[in-house]
């Protein structure tokens, strides 16, 4: 009897670990395979292999030295960073007001902000196109910085509001007794406490802006103004039948590695930021 019981326990453990291994492999494999492919050139590309068996920097050299990909990278960095700074700047004061001050219509305002963050982007595409054209920023980075506010701002406001709501009342009381104005409270009292939250929200907003595709595809029209997702989507070879898979994979790896590294470094913070945006509400 004891023997069979142990056998059942061992089977359960084995099955559990098989499931764990499956989850890890299926999560990581596509990215691993992209890296593998990015180091293959010529006919090696069209030979399926599961392990690294050929190695060449050719695709990376091709992507970085020809065409406008380096320029696209710079565009993406500039646009994402500016969008995040702008959103954080607008969101800090707004979330202070939403989390620490009681006023009529606060609940409604929060619901509206949540609604905007869930907005289908396509619903505003036509109107945004008109606004961007009339502002004269079509096909410039500013068109994207402007339009990305639609999803970075509600998100940062929402997450920072839930974070600020949890800060203890006492620190603020002490500042008020000392005669601090709300502005001083934000900059001197809250900001030093908030930087972990700011880093998390900023990083998530950065990833959102970095990955955005629909606006970037619509509001830019030349190779030099595109961001990397659009550049990768439109990367094509000499003829239409010849898709440069090696170069596409090299570009993909270049774009993704920094993100994966950042996400793994800030793992815990990102998980808490995501759940604050989603579950805690």
């Amino acid at each position, binding site marked *: 009897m004891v023997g069979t019981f142990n056998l059942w326990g061992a089977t359960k453990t084995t099955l559990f670990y098989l499931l764990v291994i499956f989850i890890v492999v299926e999560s990581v494999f596509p990215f691993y395979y992209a890296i593998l492919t990015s180091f293959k050139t010529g006919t090696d590309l069209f030979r399926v292999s599961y392990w690294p068996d050929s190695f060449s920097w050719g695709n990376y050299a091709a992507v970085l030295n020809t065409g406008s990909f380096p320029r696209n990278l710079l565009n993406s960095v500039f646009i994402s960073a500016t969008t995040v700074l702008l959103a954080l700047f*607008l969101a800090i004061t707004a979330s202070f007001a939403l989390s620490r001050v009681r006023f009529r219509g606060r*609940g409604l305002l929060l619901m509206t902000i*949540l609604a905007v963050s869930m907005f289908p982007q396509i619903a505003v595409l036509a*109107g945004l196109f008109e606004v961007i054209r009339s502002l004269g920023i079509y096909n410039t980075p500013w068109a994207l910085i402007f339009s990305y506010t639609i999803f970075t701002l509600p998100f940062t406001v929402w997450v920072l509001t839930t974070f600020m709501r949890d800060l203890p009342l006492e620190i603020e009381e002490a500042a008020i007794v000392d005669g601090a104005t709300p502005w001083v409270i934000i900059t001197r009292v809250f900001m030093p406490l908030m930087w972990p939250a700011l880093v998390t929200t900023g990083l998530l907003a950065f990833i959102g802006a970095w990955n955005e*595709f*629909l606006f970037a595809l619509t509001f830019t029209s030349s190779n030099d103004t595109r961001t990397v997702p659009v550049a990768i*989507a439109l990367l094509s070879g000499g003829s239409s039948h010849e898709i440069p898979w090696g170069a596409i994979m090299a570009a993909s790896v270049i774009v993704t590695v920094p993100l994966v590294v950042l996400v793994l470094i800030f793992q815990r913070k990102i*998980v808490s930021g995501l759940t604050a945006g*989603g579950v805690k509400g």
Partner: protein
Amino acid sequence: MATDTLAPPMAMPGVRIKSELMQQRVRAARWFLLPMLIALAVVAGWPLLRSIYFSFTDASLNNLYGAEWVGFNNYLRWTTLDSGKTVYRGLLVDPKWWGAVGNTLRFAAYSVTFEAIFGMIVALVLNAEFKGRGIVRAAILIPWAIPTIVSAKMWSWMLNDQFGILNDLGMRLGLLSQKVAWTANSDTAMTAVLIVDIWKTTPFMALLILAGLQMIPKDIYEAAEIDGVHPVKQFFRITLPLVRPALMVAIIFRLLDALRIFDLIYVLTPNSDSTKTMSVLARENLFDFDKFAYGSAMSTLLFLIIAILTILYIWLGKVRFDGGDR
């Protein structure tokens, strides 16, 4: 802000005198909210209204300002022929549009269902204590961190009919009898899209569910253990009801995301009628076919459909977003 009374910063219930301090804070709050509200109005409110307006005009890409009001013509118009037969035209009788609506709803239903199930499994695994849990959590963050466009390209290479590794693997394991053109074939295109989407967004679902699971007190399970409740029964009687609020919110976030899907389908299966969603079709009309007004009508309907589904879901599922007061 010179005040000599120690007034509470947040109004306490029962404080009768609305202090000078409180008023000052509310005034400051208004100024603090103003920049954000202006930004949202310019970037979301106004464009939404303009898009809806365009859908009632005959605007075209090069003639936005000379557009004339045409009423509901983009949605539905009819002409009666001499023979007495009435011909209906417009978005509401456009088979392409209803095809796209069907594709979108099918995609949303399948992807969210599978993501909820797989997300629950991954979350339960991560909620258990075992060696290497950190590695699993790090691993599942990778699909989430990869840009959608990149994952679409990665998978379209893996799903390639001639040189794709999935066909190779399927043949080796004997699961496939011949190579399949996953993304090009209209029977399998939706499956391909679903595979990539489920792969990419299950981690998000899992993390949200995990946050819910971790809020369940451990002693409930201890009590169930003592009473000899079977683990499967524990899951359905304890875990599922208690994790339901987190699960519902996760599902609604994903559902709204799925209903507006654009980038994955645009890159993975371009020009395939069996996967074309509302967003893809609307953008095509707006910018590629120079039917700006017609595309605006599509985006307006998409907005309405999403709004109605959201309200229905929140109402039927009794989801509560406790965003209001602390």
